[in-house]
């Protein structure tokens, strides 16, 4: 479903991704770990097409389509979802109207009728419950005054509503206590099925106790340097990134 070949990308003329290859099949969960500055967040931004992230070489295909050829919103409508590490606030725009527009943009892409306000509200309420956010969050401005944990749960709620085919979770665990982590993980796990794939970007192994990955990749200096199953994450937890060589030894695991 996703095929990344020899990807090179730069930000402000600094090359961050340096020849990355990754193939993800339908329904698979891939964790990407790595030391600080390895290019983990950059990968999410490059795949979603953020302005300022220039691809200099390589190809990315999503469900057989050339992803790099599409605008940000077109990629989103093709089913790519990025859960932000630090989602931004949009004051005065309610979560409800924001998500309704968003869901209907996806439906339009799929050739479906837009949801009416009542139909949407029903779905939104369910999603809200699933991530244990009070219903009044639907009325509040997008991320406006939300705590860190609430913002992350709100991202997962959006993911549930949008039903994407590829979800990229960018450090969705950072800054969460164990309870909040459980809620986020439950939300994600509830969405796992044989068609939907996940890229879980994380610095710590902890999240992977809750979201069991099929594959774990270590990203360092813009490349995947090691791949394995869930046990690789445990190894990193134990020994840090020492195996990467001197350069990363001090980097916390």
């Amino acid at each position, binding site marked *: 479903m996703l095929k990344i070949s020899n990807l090179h990308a730069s930000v402000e003329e600094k090359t961050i991704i340096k020849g990355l290859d990754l193939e993800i099949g339908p329904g698979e969960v891939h964790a990407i770990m790595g030391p600080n500055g390895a290019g983990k967040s950059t990968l999410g931004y490059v795949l979603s097409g953020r302005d300022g992230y220039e691809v200099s070489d390589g190809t990315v295909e999503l469900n057989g389509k050339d992803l790099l050829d599409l605008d*940000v919103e077109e990629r*989103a409508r093709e089913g790519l979802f990025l859960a932000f590490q630090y989602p931004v606030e*949009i004051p*005065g*725009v309610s979560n409800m109207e924001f998500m309704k*527009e*968003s869901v209907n943009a996806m439906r339009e892409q799929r050739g479906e009728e837009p949801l009416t306000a009542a139909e949407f509200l029903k779905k939104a309420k369910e999603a809200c419950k699933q991530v244990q956010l009070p219903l009044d969050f639907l009325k509040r401005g997008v991320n406006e005054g939300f705590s860190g944990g609430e913002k992350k749960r709100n991202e997962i709620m959006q993911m549930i509503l949008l039903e994407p085919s590829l979800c990229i979770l960018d450090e969705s665990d950072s800054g969460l206590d164990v309870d909040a982590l459980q809620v986020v993980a439950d939300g994600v796990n509830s969405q796992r099925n044989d068609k939907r794939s996940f890229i879980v970007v994380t610095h710590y192994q902890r999240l992977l106790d809750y979201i069991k990955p099929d594959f774990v990749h270590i990203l360092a200096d813009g490349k995947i340097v090691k791949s394995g199953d869930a046990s690789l994450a445990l190894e990193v937890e134990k020994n840090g990134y020492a195996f990467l060589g001197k350069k990363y030894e001090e980097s916390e695991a």
Partner: protein
Amino acid sequence: MSEQIDQALSRKYDAGFYSEIESETFENGLDESVIRRISEMKGEPEWMLEWRLKAYNAWLQMEEPEWAHVEYPKVDFQAISYYSAPKSMKDKPKSLDEVDPELLRTYEKLGIPLHEQEMLAGVAVDAVFDSVSVVTTFREKLEEAGVIFCPISEAVHKYPELIKKYLGSVVPRTDNFYAALNGAVFTDGSFVFIPKGVRCPMELSTYFRINEQNTGQFERTLIVAEEGSYVSYLEGCTAPQRDENQLHAAVVELVAMDDAQIKYSTVQNWYPGDEDGKGGIYNFVTKRGICHTNAKISWTQVETGSSVTWKYPSCVLKGDNSVGEFYSVALTRGRQQADTGTKMIHLGKNTRSTIISKGISAGKSNNAYRGLVQMGPRADGARNFTECDSLLIGDQCGAHTFPYIESRNPTAIVEHEATTSKVSDEQLFLCQQRGLDAEKAVSMIVNGFCKEVFKELPMEFAVEAGKLLEISLEGSVG
């Protein structure tokens, strides 16, 4: 992103068409004889002419104000025609059936059908075309409630005592350069009178349309709400797309007697000029209301048009416990310039005022908020709260805030909050990542920013205002 923003300027102006209507238009120029001719065209009584001439003589002595944060070539007052009216209006049509269908079509195209059965239920309209009022709807229904809603030129004949008493009572002829000019040459506008204790049964609205080339529009609106009455009034404005600048210098006076309430809303969409700043309306307007005891005046404005705006709807809080409110959204793009805000003059005890101003600047425009809060020596316990927010789209526009606070009463409380923010790349990216295109994203962010003001608009128009912003921002991102 700034590259995308540059395209902001390429938006289309839906109201920019010109109607082929045979008009009687004065040759350009202004002198005493022109004023006499306007007065004669309107068949005015002698006292009205004298009033005009006094205003004219005052104007001759005055100088164009230059303190506003706007730049434009000096207006040549001799290059303007001060009167233009469709020929068909000369015979004063008695009903809609007698009105030139082309005129009606013009309003229909603007989304203002004038046939009562087609109109928004509950809204009465006075349609002013260049220098004359074309039609005023629902007059009979309003008359049943004792409400007077008619062209001001007609009120001069029918209600001379009211006009003599109130015209110029809030904005004197000599108030300022443009008010004096308006006093001399005003041609039409609306007159509203709500008798004691009456709650006006409908929304009243006036729709101003400039059509003819090189003409100025100088309308005058006077609203008098007697003791304990209530009225909600809305004005809308558009003009054809032209390369020359046109002048619009209006005066609006509101009188709220004891316990009366006036809600005055404006959706202003004059032609703003093209992306290089060519053409567009100069909107130099004086709006002021006076509140007697326990009265309340609320100004709500959504301003998206005009090439240059100079406008400060104000409240004189004369009576004790009176309330003044000003809610404003001003959007500038292209080369538009706006210097707008309000004056809250607290004279009575326990008077209260609220100012919520939202300025949005895009393109290469400049948007200034200028507001005065004045607490008089008698204004014990008076309070003001001001919130002044600016939103910048792109990196070539400007937002400015000029607050003036004068307090001569130690018990008065004045609060002022101001913020400046940008539509950030991150906000845009979040929206796009959720499948919204950039244009939709910007309009959503801007609508959110304006929410506090939109909720003050009458229901029917809040939606319109949102749409207007959407159209105004069309093409603002690529």
